[in-house]
């Protein structure tokens, strides 16, 4: 089958190219430009070649050390919140009502945290968890547990993780709920006829039907947590010490704090490549699932 070719199609594509050039390509190229130069202010730039990249990827240098430390912290953070939010989200979705007015009430309640802006979430928890005046922090201390997220790195981590779980578990739960709702009643009836246990129903009916939405949930939560900035910045400012300094916080410190445009540009390119790589992996996994599905004749 021959596809028709018509060069006038370019006319339709060009406006998009122009917009994307100004919104993405040109800014990105200025970053590439910075990443191969050093600057001492006053708009004086000196060629540095791949110098920043080599330093950045070598953990023994100061810059490389900072980048890798924040990268590991960030990966650990993403892993922990995924390990909590995914099972918790599934559990919440399973417990949500399926019929009646309670459905609407639950959905609204669940959507509430998702509607709060990031910096407000940060501020809420910054105050809520303060050991001196915060309701949560004060209560924990009154229980005899020494808790202070400003001074103790572990407390700071716990605070940020609990905050993220509070903010985002709803998203996972709502996605899973949508997956659960798509299961026809006949499946549950057949399972009862087959004498399946509650666990077997979950393992062989609910989990397989939730698989696709779960992949989306994991992707969204990973991407979001991997570029988290506002909430830890508001709550801990990356501290105590550097204990909650994630990649984006480190990047902002470099670019706007120290005004090391070259280093920051190089780091943001590497950061961007990591994000793209992860996206690509997820995209491949998801499209492979689709291919597998499409191969089935008359699937219902």
């Amino acid at each position, binding site marked *: 089958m021959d596809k028709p070719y018509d060069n006038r199609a370019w006319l339709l594509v060009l406006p998009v190219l122009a917009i994307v050039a100004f919104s993405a390509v040109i800014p990105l190229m200025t970053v590439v430009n910075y990443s191969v130069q050093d600057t001492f202010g006053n708009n004086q730039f000196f060629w540095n070649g791949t110098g920043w990249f080599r330093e950045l990827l070598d953990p023994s240098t100061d810059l490389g050390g900072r980048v890798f430390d924040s990268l590991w912290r960030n990966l650990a953070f993403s892993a922990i919140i995924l390990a909590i939010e995914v099972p918790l989200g599934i559990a919440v979705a399973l417990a949500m009502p399926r019929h009646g007015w309670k459905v609407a009430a639950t959905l609204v309640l669940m959507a509430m945290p998702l509607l709060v802006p990031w910096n407000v979430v940060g501020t809420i928890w910054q105050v809520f968890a303060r050991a001196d005046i915060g309701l949560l922090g004060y209560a924990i201390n009154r229980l005899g547990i020494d808790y202070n997220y400003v001074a103790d790195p572990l407390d700071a981590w716990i605070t940020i993780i609990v905050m993220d779980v509070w903010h985002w578990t709803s998203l996972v739960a709502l996605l899973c709920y949508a997956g659960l709702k798509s299961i026809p009643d006949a499946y549950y*009836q057949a399972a*009862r*006829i*087959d004498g399946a246990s509650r666990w077997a129903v979950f393992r062989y009916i609910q989990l397989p039907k939730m698989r696709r939405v779960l992949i989306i949930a994991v992707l969204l939560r990973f991407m979001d947590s991997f570029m988290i900035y506002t909430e830890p910045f508001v709550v801990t400012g990356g501290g105590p010490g550097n204990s909650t300094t994630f990649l984006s916080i480190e990047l902002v410190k470099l670019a706007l704090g120290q005004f090391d445009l070259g280093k920051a540009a190089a780091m943001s390119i590497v950061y961007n490549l990591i994000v793209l790589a992860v996206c690509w992996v997820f995209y491949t996994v998801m499209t492979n699932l689709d291919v597998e599905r499409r191969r089935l004749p008359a699937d*219902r």
Partner: protein
Amino acid sequence: MARIELSNLAHSYTPGASEPGDFALKAMNLTWRQGGAYALLGPSGCGKTTLLNIISGLLTPSHGQVLFDGRDVTGLPTEQRNIAQVFQFPVVYDTMTVRENLAFPLRNRGMAGKAADRRVREIAELLDLSGELDRKARGLTADAKQKISLGRGLVRPDVAAILFDEPLTVIDPQLKWELRSKLKALHRALDVTMIYVTHDQTEALTFADTVMVMYDGSVVQAGRPDELFERPDHTFVGYFIGSPGMNVLPAEIEGSRARVGGGTIELSRSYDVPSGRRIEIGVRPEFASLAPPGEGLAATVERIDDLGRARLARLRLGGHPFAASVPEALADIGTAAGVVLERAQVHVYADGKRLEGRA
């Protein structure tokens, strides 16, 4: 293995219902004997599936009791009733292989090892699934998936009854015949009660020993296929079974004479007709034949359908549509014609229910 009885059973989906219209199932007493092959036949929305779900325990009836071998199981959940049920649309466990799917009901009941394996292979053999036992169920066609669902219903050796809820809807016609005869053969081999729900009369009549015709929440007649055909107890049965259905005409009855559409016919029995009720006569097209004008009841011919094997006349008789068979000897006929009814096959109905006449 069990005899299933329904005692004063009724069901309403709205709690506290009192109007007859609120009931999806109207009060009924029914018995299914152990080992019978039954069909529940009726149009969509007549309560077939509701009745089936009550027997299997997926639904608890709002009134009355369900008894298995005399034991009250009304409050027992499905899992404890030992019932198998196959649904209209295929339900398979996607992540399992065909073999695991078939073994699932056995495994959940603690049957494992060689015995379970042998049983799975037997059922797979029967349903032509042997070659696909180790494939993932996810990748199969709708036909194959429904065969798996059937297989999961059939695999348990000790069930009280197997219920089929229009199980062959998604199967293509060729395979439908094959599967239906397999089910029938299986019924003979297993001596298990089977209840088969369908809205397709051919399916019901070929599968079952006893066909129960449901209409608007009640079973209006239960009987052998030939009984349903020859002596419909209810005008609905006459209309629903047979193609085309029974002719039903308003009539006035006096003893053994009936006035229909301006003419009078002799009946084989005489009737005492209760007053104030809707009186009709019913006669199947097979027992009414077209005749030259002047014979029998006067009618006008609207068209003649050639069905290949036979010809069927579409008439109007006293303003009502009427179907009659056309004798082979009868040549082309004009608009005006007569209809001759086979006397013994004319039934009298009062408010839809058949009256027994006196000889």
